[in-house]
C-alpha cells in the first residue's frame, strides 16, 4: 500500500546529481568489459575438450547461459551510458551477484572450504576446551534466572559470554589459526586468487557506487525497493541457483541419458522412463508358467485369475514396480499407524488435565532421534530370539516366533511400526495444536445443542481441524514416499525385494549399479507421484473443509 502511494514520488534532486560524470562512464566501461570477459568465458567453456564428464549438452547450455549474461552486461553498459535506471538496476544486481559468486569462488581457489576439515580436526584435538561453551552457556542460563536489572544477572551473563569468547579464541589459536592465516596469505599471493580478489573488490565498488547514485538515474522509491529487495534475496537466491536449480536441471537432463559415471552421458530420449514403466499383458492358462509368454528380461509383477485363465502382467523393470508397490503399501500402513493413533492421543491430551505438557513432551521424544540410531535399537528389539517384541508376544502366544526383519510378509510392517513410533507423538502434538485452536464457544454451543461426543467429533471437530489433518497426512505421506534410511539400516541383511522402496531402488541403481541415468529417471517419476498425491490431498481437503461453510 505504502509503496504504491510513494511510487510516483522522486527523491530530492540536487543539481550535482544530474548529468554524466566520469564515474558513470567508468561504470559503463566496466559493464562493457564484463560483457567482453563473459563472452570470452563462454567461448572457453564451449571449446573445452572435456567438460567434467558431463557431456556436450551441459557444456553448450552453460556456454549459452554465460553468453546471455554477457548480452545483459552489454545492454546495461549501453543503458547506464544513457543514464537509464533500468540499466542501473541490471548493473546493480549483476555486480552484487558477481560479488557474491566471487566470494564463493575466492574461497574455492584459496582452498578455504576444504579447510573446514582442518578446523574440525583442530577442534577434535582440543576437544576438552569445547567444555567452555556449555560452561559459559550454563552461566548465562543461571544469570537469566535472576530478575531483570539485578547486578548478579548482568554479571553472570557477561561472565558466561566472556567464557565462551575466551574459549573460542583459545580453540582457534590451538587449532592452528595463526598458521592457517599465514597459509591463507600465501595462497592469496598467487595470480588467480589475486585476480578473483581484484574482481571481487571491483564488483563491490561498482555495485555500491551505483546503489548510492540513484538520484542521477531518476530513481523512484519503488525502484529503489526493487533492487534492495533483490539484494536481500541474493544470498538465498545464489544458493538456490547453485545448489538447487542447477542440479535440478542437470537431473532432468541426466534422466534422458545413459550414464554410468565413467563414460559421458549419452542422450537416449525417453528410454529410461520407458524401461522403468513398460508393461506387458498376457492371458494364459492358469497352470502355464509366465516365463513362456513374457519377453526376455521381463518378470511377472502381478497375476489376476480369470477362471481357467489368468492375466499375467509383466514388467521390464520388475524391481521398480515392486519398489513402487512397497512404497505405497508402506505409506498406507504409516497413515494407519502413524496418523490415526496420533489423533486419538491428541484427543486424550486435549482433556486439559494437569501434567498434559509432561506427557506431550514424552510423546514427542522419539521424533527427535536420528533414524539410523533408532533403527539400531529396533533391530535388536525385533530379534526373533533375544528381542523384547517376540518375548512379549510369546507371553500371549507361546508358540509364535515372528522373523520380523527377514520374513518378507512382515518386514515392511516391522519398519512401519518403527516409523509410526517415531512419528506418532510428533503428529499428536500437531493435532493437539489444531484441537486447541477450536474456539471453546463452538464446542460448548454444540454440547448445549445436545450433540453426543461422537457426533461432536465427526460433525464439528473433524471439519474444524481439516487443515491440520491435511498438513499431517501430506507430510506423513511425503516422508513415507521418500523412505529409505529405515529400510537401509533395518533390512540390510535380507535379499528379499520386500525391502525395496523407490528411493532404496534408486540408491542401489545409482550407487551400486551405477545407472545414473536410470536412477535420475526414477527420481523424477517419484516426484510426479508425490506431486499427484499432494494435489489429490489438496482437492480432498478443500472439499471437506467446504462443508463447514
Amino acid at each position: 500500500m505504502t509503496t504504491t502511494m510513494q511510487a510516483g514520488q522522486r527523491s530530492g534532486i540536487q543539481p550535482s546529481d544530474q548529468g554524466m560524470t566520469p564515474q558513470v562512464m567508468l561504470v559503463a566501461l566496466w559493464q562493457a568489459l564484463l560483457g567482453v570477459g563473459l563472452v570470452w568465458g563462454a567461448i572457453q567453456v564451449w571449446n573445452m575438450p572435456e567438460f567434467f564428464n558431463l557431456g556436450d549438452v551441459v557444456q553448450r547450455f552453460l556456454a549459452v547461459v554465460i553468453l546471455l549474461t554477457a548480452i545483459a552486461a552489454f545492454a546495461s553498459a549501453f543503458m547506464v551510458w544513457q543514464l537509464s535506471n533500468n540499466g542501473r538496476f541490471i548493473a546493480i544486481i549483476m555486480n552484487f551477484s558477481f560479488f557474491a559468486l566471487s566470494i564463493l569462488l575466492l574461497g574455492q581457489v584459496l582452498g578455504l572450504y576444504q579447510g573446514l576439515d582442518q578446523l574440525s580436526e583442530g577442534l577434535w584435538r582440543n576437544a576438552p576446551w569445547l567444555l567452555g561453551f556449555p560452561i559459559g552457556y550454563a552461566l548465562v542460563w543461571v544469570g537469566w534466572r535472576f530478575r531483570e536489572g539485578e547486578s548478579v544477572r548482568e554479571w553472570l551473563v557477561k561472565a558466561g559470554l566472556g567464557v565462551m569468547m575466551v574459549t573460542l579464541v583459545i580453540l582457534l589459536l590451538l587449532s592452528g589459526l595463526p598458521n592457517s592465516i599465514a597459509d591463507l596469505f600465501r595462497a592469496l599471493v598467487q595470480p588467480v586468487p589475486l585476480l578473483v580478489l581484484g574482481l571481487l573488490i571491483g564488483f563491490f565498488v561498482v555495485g555500491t557506487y551505483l546503489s548510492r547514485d540513484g538520484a542521477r538515474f531518476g530513481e523512484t522509491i519503488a525502484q529503489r525497493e526493487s533492487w534492495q529487495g533483490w539484494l536481500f534475496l541474493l544470498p538465498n537466491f545464489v544458493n538456490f541457483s547453485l545448489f538447487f536449480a542447477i542440479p535440478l536441471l542437470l537431473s532432468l537432463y541426466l534422466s534422458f541419458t545413459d550414464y554410468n559415471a565413467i563414460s559421458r552421458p549419452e542422450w537416449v530420449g525417453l528410454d529410461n522412463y520407458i524401461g522403468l514403466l513398460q508393461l506387458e499383458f498376457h492371458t494364459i492358462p492358469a497352470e502355464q508358467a509366465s516365463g513362456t509368454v513374457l519377453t526376455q528380461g521381463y518378470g511377472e509383477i502381478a497375476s489376476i485369475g480369470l477362471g481357467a485363465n489368468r492375466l499375467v502382467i509383466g514388467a521390464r523393470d520388475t524391481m521398480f514396480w515392486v519398489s513402487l508397490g512397497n512404497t505405497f503399501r508402506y505409506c498406507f500402513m504409516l497413515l494407519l499407524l502413524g496418523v490415526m493413533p496420533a489423533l486419538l492421543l491428541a484427543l486424550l491430551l486435549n482433556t486439559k488435565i494437569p501434567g498434559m505438557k509432561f506427557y506431550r513432551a514424552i510423546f514427542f521424544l522419539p521424533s527427535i532421534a536420528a533414524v539410523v540410531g533408532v533403527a539400531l535399537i529396533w533391530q535388536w528389539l525385533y530379534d526373533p530370539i533375544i528381542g523384547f517384541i517376540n518375548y512379549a508376544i510369546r507371553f500371549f502366544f507361546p508358540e509364535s516366533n515372528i522373523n520380523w526383519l527377514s520374513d518378507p510378509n512382515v518386514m515392511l510392517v516391522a519398519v512401519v511400526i518403527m516409523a509410526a513410533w517415531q512419528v506418532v507423538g510428533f503428529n499428536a502434538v500437531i493435532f493437539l495444536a489444531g484441537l486447541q485452536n477450536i474456539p471453546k464457544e463452538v464446542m460448548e454451543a454444540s454440547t448445549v445443542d445436545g450433540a453426543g461426543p461422537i457426533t461432536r467429533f465427526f460433525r464439528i471437530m473433524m471439519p474444524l481441524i481439516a487443515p491440520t489433518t491435511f498438513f499431517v497426512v501430506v507430510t506423513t505421506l511425503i516422508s513415507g514416499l521418500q523412505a529409505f534410511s529405515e529400510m537401509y539400516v533395518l533390512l540390510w541383511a535380507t535379499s528379499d525385494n520386500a525391502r525395496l522402496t523407490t528411493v532404496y531402488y534408486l540408491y542401489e541403481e545409482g550407487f551400486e549399479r551405477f545407472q545414473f541415468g536410470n536412477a535420475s529417471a526414477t527420481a523424477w517419476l517419484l516426484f510426479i507421484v508425490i506431486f499427484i498425491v499432494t494435489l489429490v490431498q489438496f482437492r480432498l481437503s478443500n472439499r471437506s473443509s467446504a462443508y463447514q461453510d
Partner: protein
Amino acid sequence: MNRKLVIVALLAVLTASLSFALVANAQDDVTVTWRTRPDNQAEIDVYTSLSDSIDAKLDGVTLAYQAGGTETAGYQATLLTELAAGTAPDIFWIPGTDIATFAGEGVIANLSAVATADADFDASVFYPQQINELTYNPETGESNVEQALWGLPRDASSFALYVNLDLFEEAGIPTPTEQLEAGNWNWETFTQTVKDIGALGDDVVGFGLNAWWANWWLWMNAAGGGYFNADKTECALNSDGTRAALEFLVELYGSGETVPFGTDSEPPFIAGNVGMFLNGRWATPNTAAQATFNWDYAEVPAGPNGQSNWLFWGAYVVNASSLEDPARAAAVWNVLKELTSVESQGLVTALGANIPSRAGEDAIAAFFASPVSEGKNNAAFTNALANYAVAEAPLWTGNFGEYDAVVGAEVTKVINGELSPADFQANICGMVPALGM
C-alpha cells in the same frame, strides 16, 4: 655501487635456490598411490606398514597408502567417480566380480606387455582359477598372459563351515570333520546334523548363512547347477541341478532349525547359539576375538554332484593412466609385484581374514604358521581352493550386478516359500538380462 652488489648477490642466491629446487625436483621419487578396502583398523595398520616396508625396499619409489571404505558399494562408487575425474590412485584393489566392468570401460590397464617383458614374473604361482580370469581377453575369448593381464590377485578365500564344537559335544554327535573323515559328509548327514543341534533348545539352531549370492550358488554348484553355462554365455538357472539345490535349501529352512533366512547369522553364532555358520575366511578375526566357545573350521558337505566351493578373490589392478609415463609404469609394476609377494601376503594373512592367493608351498606354510591359524583346521579352506573351488568370476558377457539383482530376489522368494522351485525353474531364465557379447 653497494646497491648493485646487493642486487647481484640476491639474484645469485635466487638462481641458486631455484636451480637447486629444480634439481631436487628432478631427483624426486615417483609417488605411487595405492588403495584397498580394509575391514578394520588392524588391517589399515598392517597395510600401512606393508606400504612403508615396500617403500623402503624399492629405490626411487615413494608409496602412499589410502584406506578405502569397508562397504563394497561405497568403495566402488568412489573409485568410479575418481577414475572419471582423474584422481584415482595408481593401484587399487577391486573384487573379482568387477574386473570385467572396469576393464570394459578401459579404466584399468592391460599389463600384458609389462608382464611378458619381465623375466622374473611367473603367473603360475597364483591359483589357476584366478589367473585364468585375470588373463582373459574379451575380444578373443582366450586366457593367457600374452594377451591380457588385468592385475594380480591380492588373496583368496573359499567358504567353510565355522563349527561350534561345544554344541556338538553337548549333542553327542560327530563333528563335520569327523564325518568327512568317515566319508560320510553329504547333504543328508548335514540335514540330520542341523536337526540334532537344533534339538538342543529353543534358542539354538543348527545352521546359518548370510543371504547373498555365493551362499546359494555354492549349493547349486554342488548339485550340478549354477548361474551360467561353462563359458558364461547362457543362463543355466533352469537346470535340474539348480532346482535340486533350491529344493534342498527350502527343506533346510523349512525345518525351523536354522537362523531365519535373511538375518545376519554372525551375531547368534558368536553368541554360541548356532551349530554351523557358513562364511569365508573374513569372518575369522571377529570369531577369534569374541567367541567364548571351542570352534573350528570344517568343509562344506558334498552335494549330489560331489564337493564344490567358491574361490573368492579380489585383485590389485592398475589405473590405465598410470601406464602413460614409462618411468611410472615400471615403478607401478614393481610395487604391484611386491604387494603380492610371499612376504606381503604373509603379513596380511597373519591377521586372519585372508588366505594367500599364491598356491605355492611357501605361502601356504607361512599361512598355516601364523598365530591366528594355530590349532585350527585351516585345510578346510586350502583343500577347497586347491581341489574343487571354482573362481568367483567376473561376468565378461553382461552386467553381473543387474543379473544377480534379479536372481537374488527370486531365489529369496523360493527359500522364503513365496515361489516354488518349479516355477523358478520355469521362469527365471526369461527374467534375467540377456547374456552375450
